[in-house]
Structure formats: C-alpha cells, structure tokens
C-alpha cells in the first residue's frame, strides 16, 4: 500500500490509474449488458450516437457501447493471460540461465536471442492461421505468451546474475540451503517488481498483436475484442459510409489503453530505479 501511495504522487501514474479503473468498470458492466454480443439485429441499424445508444449502433444492429464493454474485457483478459504465460517462461529461462551459468546459460541465451531476432509476427500469423478454428481468448493468450518472453528473460537473467554475486547468496549456500529455497525465498522477492513492470509492457504488446491478428482475419471474429470490433467496422465499409462512431470507438479506446499502460510502466520502472527516483525527488 505504501508503494501504491508513493506511485500515486506521480501524475503520469495517476492519469494511467484513472484510465485503467475506467476500463475495469467498463469490463464489469458486461454483467449488466441488456444485449448478447453474439446476436445481430437486436437494435436499430447504423444509428448515430443518441440517448439509449450513447455510442451509436452498428450496421449489424448491435449497440456499440455494449459491444465495447465485452471487447475491452476480452482484450484485457487475453493480454493478461499472455502476460502471465510469458512471465512464467521468462522467469524460468532467466533464473535457470542466470543461476546455472555455463553451457545451459549459453544455450538458453542463444534461444532467447534467436527469438529476439526472428520476425516473430510472421510466425505468429502462420501459427494462428493454421490453428484458426480453435482460436479463442485463452488460446490466443497462450500463443502470444509463448512468443513474447524473450526480452524479459534477458532482463530477469541479468538481475539474477547480479543477485548471485551478492553476499547473501554465499551465506545461503554455505549454511546449506538448497537451490530451490535460494531461488524461491531469496531471489523471487527481488524479481517480483521486475515481473510487474515488464508485465505491463507485455500486455500492451499482446493487445496490439491481438488487434493486428484480428484485422488479418486469423482470430475468431465472433468473439468481441477491440481487434474484431475494428475488423467488423472496416470490413463493413464503415469508413466510407461515414459511420465514424463505429470506427472511432475501438480506435480511441485502444489508444487509451496503450497510453495508460505505457504511462504506468514508465512510472513503475522509474520508481524501481532509485537513481531516477532521486532525480525526481530532487526536482519536486
């Protein structure tokens, strides 16, 4: 809680927090949705924003606002799954490489570097296209998680490398603790903040990926996400027909999500880096 109060002193974090809160409220509103997002023609078609349909309706007869609530929820959920899966892989690879060193380190880091260099986007598209029939939010999250860990594994490894040289590691080893207890009791507490700050960046990447994959049509278009919402509006020529409320809603909300997540990650990583924190306190 103290950390949170400290973070709230940063204006950027404050803005980001308010936006994220708003998005969470939107997601929870799905529980009260009067319409089923998979049904068409439940309301009047292609109506501009007005009372009762505050964000207008689509030309398939869906209410944009209520579809949006589902879209935000599903997109956040996908990215959270992707983030958690890739965090687990990054932690495993980073800790193993950093702690064991030697050949294991070299093999793992070679793999990590390959993942960094190879244009993963085309491989993810290949994967998603073949598994298209089984794509839902959970599988997409796992797929993105399986590809999005490389950079963060490097970050974890360098942190573990520096922890391994600290005195307390030697104390633990000399007093007979086994590897597992050193990693879980001594290292994990140091790695937790790192996990959180990288999680946010990864979530942002996953949402961007989800939107791109939906536009490409390799994601199940019946599941409302920010990407599929945009895909429906563009493939229904909403841009040419002048249905701006339908195109702009997913665009504006995704920009809001990206900016909020970015501000949050910058603010948290500055908080974690004591040198940057000193600079900030010095200025204030």
């Amino acid at each position, binding site marked *: 809680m103290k950390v949170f109060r400290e973070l709230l002193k940063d204006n*950027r974090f404050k803005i980001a927090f308010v936006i994220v809160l708003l998005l969470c409220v939107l997601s929870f509103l799905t529980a009260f949705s009067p319409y089923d997002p998979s049904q068409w023609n439940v309301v009047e078609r292609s109506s501009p924003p007005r009372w009762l349909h505050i964000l207008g309706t689509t030309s398939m007869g869906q209410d944009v606002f209520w579809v949006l609530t589902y879209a935000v929820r599903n997109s956040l959920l996908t990215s959270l799954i992707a983030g958690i899966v890739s965090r687990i892989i990054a932690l495993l690879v980073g800790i193993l490489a950093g702690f064991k060193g030697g050949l294991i380190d070299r093999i793992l880091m*070679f*793999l990590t*570097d*390959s993942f*960094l*260099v*190879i*244009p*993963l*986007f*085309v*491989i993810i*598209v*290949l*994967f998603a*296209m*073949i*598994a*298209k*029939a*089984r794509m839902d939010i959970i599988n997409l999250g796992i797929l993105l998680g399986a590809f999005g860990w490389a950079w963060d594994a490097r970050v974890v490894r360098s942190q573990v490398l520096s922890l391994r040289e600290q005195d307390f590691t030697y104390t633990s080893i000399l007093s007979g603790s086994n590897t597992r207890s050193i990693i879980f009791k001594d290292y994990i507490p140091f790695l937790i903040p790192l996990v959180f700050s990288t999680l946010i960046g990864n979530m*942002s990447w996953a*949402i*961007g*990926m989800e*939107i*791109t994959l939906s*536009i*490409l*049509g*390799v994601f199940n278009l019946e599941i409302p996400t920010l990407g599929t919402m*945009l895909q429906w509006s563009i493939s229904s020529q909403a*841009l040419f027909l002048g249905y701006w409320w339908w*195109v702009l809603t997913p*665009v504006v909300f*995704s*920009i809001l999500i*990206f*900016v909020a*997540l*970015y*501000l949050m990650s*910058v603010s948290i990583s500055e908080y974690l880096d004591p040198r940057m924190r000193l600079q900030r306190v010095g200025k204030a």
Partner: protein
Amino acid sequence: MKFVKNYLIPRLITYFLVIFVGITMVFFIPRFLPTDPVQQFIARFTTQGVYMDPKSVENMISTLKQLYGLEGSLWEQYRDFLVRFSKLDFGPSYYQFPTPVKTLIAQSLPWTVGLLLSTTLLSWVIGSILGGFAGYYPDKKWVKIVDLIAMVIRPMPYYILALSLLILFGFIFPIFPVRGGFSIGGKIRFDLYSIVTILKHAFLPALSLLLIGTFVWFQGMKLIVQTVKSEDYVRYAKYAGVPEKKIVYQYVIRNAMLPQITGLALSLGQIFSGALITEMTFSYPGMGTLLYNAVFTGDYNLLMGITSISIIVITTSVFLIDLLYPLLDPRVKYK
C-alpha cells in the same frame, strides 16, 4: 586474420544457427498443430458445394500432400524441407496459381526493403540526434513538448497509428494517395514523374513508420545520454574547459550511439513486423500485402515462403550490423 578467427567465424556460426532455429520453427509449427492443412483445403471445396467422388478426393489428398511436402516420415519431410529451402523453392502459389512463390516474393521484396531501409535509417538518425540533445538539455521547452508527443505516439501499435493516418489523410484531408505503391496501371520508368509518384504513394506508410521509429529511438537515446552525462569523464571535460559543442557531439552522443546500434540490431525483427502491418494497412505492394493476401486466400506455400524469406532478410541484416559494429566502436579490437 585475427578478425576472421575471433570475430567473423563465431558470428557466422550464430548467423546460420539462428536461421536454422527459425526455419525449424516454420517446419514444425504446422506439423505439430492438430489441424491438417490438407483436410482444410478439401473442406473448403466441399463447403463450396463442389461434389467430388471418393476416388478423386483420394487423388487430391495425395497430390496436396506431395505439394505441401507432407509425404514420408517426419525426418524425411524435414530433410526435404531443408533441401528445398536451400534452393528457395517453396512451390507454386495458390493465390495466383501457377506463379511460383519465389517470383511473387521477388516482386514485392524490393518495395519492402526500400520502405524499410529508408524509414529505419532516417528514424534512427533523427531519433538519436533529437534524443541526444533532449537528454543533454532536459529542461528546454521543446524537449518537454516532444516528450509529451512521444508519450502518446510511442506506445501505439503500428496498425492503430497507420489507421489513424489513413483516416486523417484519406478522409479528412485527402492530399496523399492511401492505396498502392504506384498509380494503377502505370508503368515505372526512370523519369521525374515516376519518382514523384512513387514518393507520393510511399509518403503515408513511410510517415507512420517514421513517427513510431523516431520516438522509440528518441526515448532510448534520451535515457542513455542522461546517464552518460553524469559520467566522470564528461564532468572532467567540462571543468577542463572543452567547448560544450565538442562535449555534446564527441563525448556524449558518440558514446551513447553504441547501445543504440545494438538496439537497432535487436529490434530489427520488430521493425520489420511493423513495416508488414503498415504495408497491409495502405495496401503497399510489398511483403505485408502479400502476407495479407496469403492469409486471406489460405495460401500455405506463400505463407511459408514469406516467413522463411523474412527470417533470412532480418538475420542477414542483423549480421551485417554486427560486422559493422567494430568499425564504430574503437574498443572492440578483435583481440
């Protein structure tokens, strides 16, 4: 000779290994997934209402298996795949039938390389210089304004930024063409008109790549310069009365460039992915649009070809940057 032994050979080995890892992924992903591309292909025909007797279905399956390289044991398939890959033979494309995948890629690769090369270099240079000054003089007014813009543009994924530009310039201020790489039906010649048309068509895709790129490098450089600035040697140079211009250019920016080069090599794959997405949005005739068509028509051969070629192009560029690195960093002396 020492250069070859200590620098070139280890990097060459890594280069081939990375390609190998990538190609192996491309080979195994379709084979370990529960969906069968051949069955999917057949199913598309049957849902279209085409009637086929069992014998011709049987024939078709074996032909498709041959085309996709799905015959024999996994090991034989893998060996076959590697041999075909070394000849860059990916079979015919289904989206534009008998045209080989190789020809289609050869047609679109120059567009992508041109767009990618110019925007990456330009954004890297502009972003690094701007970021260098911003890091050195963090309290100037323009730095704060650029910082604010960077905060909004930088986190945006390529698609959303490209779409925003498309809406802005295609529908609100229609100045630039929003589709294609050249006027429809036009023939490219080496004259002023052709060059202007090409540049005009490239403007919006290039702008969206430039915007994101510049701000990424801007922020990276700014952070590095802020740390370099407080190093002892910079302070010493200042006390010794070295002119400030010289400190900024030769002491600070020069040193901060090096991590930026490493950063460029590492993020080239992501920039490439971004270029593909941008091309898709503007229907630019490069690899991105080809990828889009391949996905929409379910063209596996083309998709495999694009994926493999992308891996080669990117790893080669990273390898080249790696080779240039010792020229720029006097501390690397091939031992």
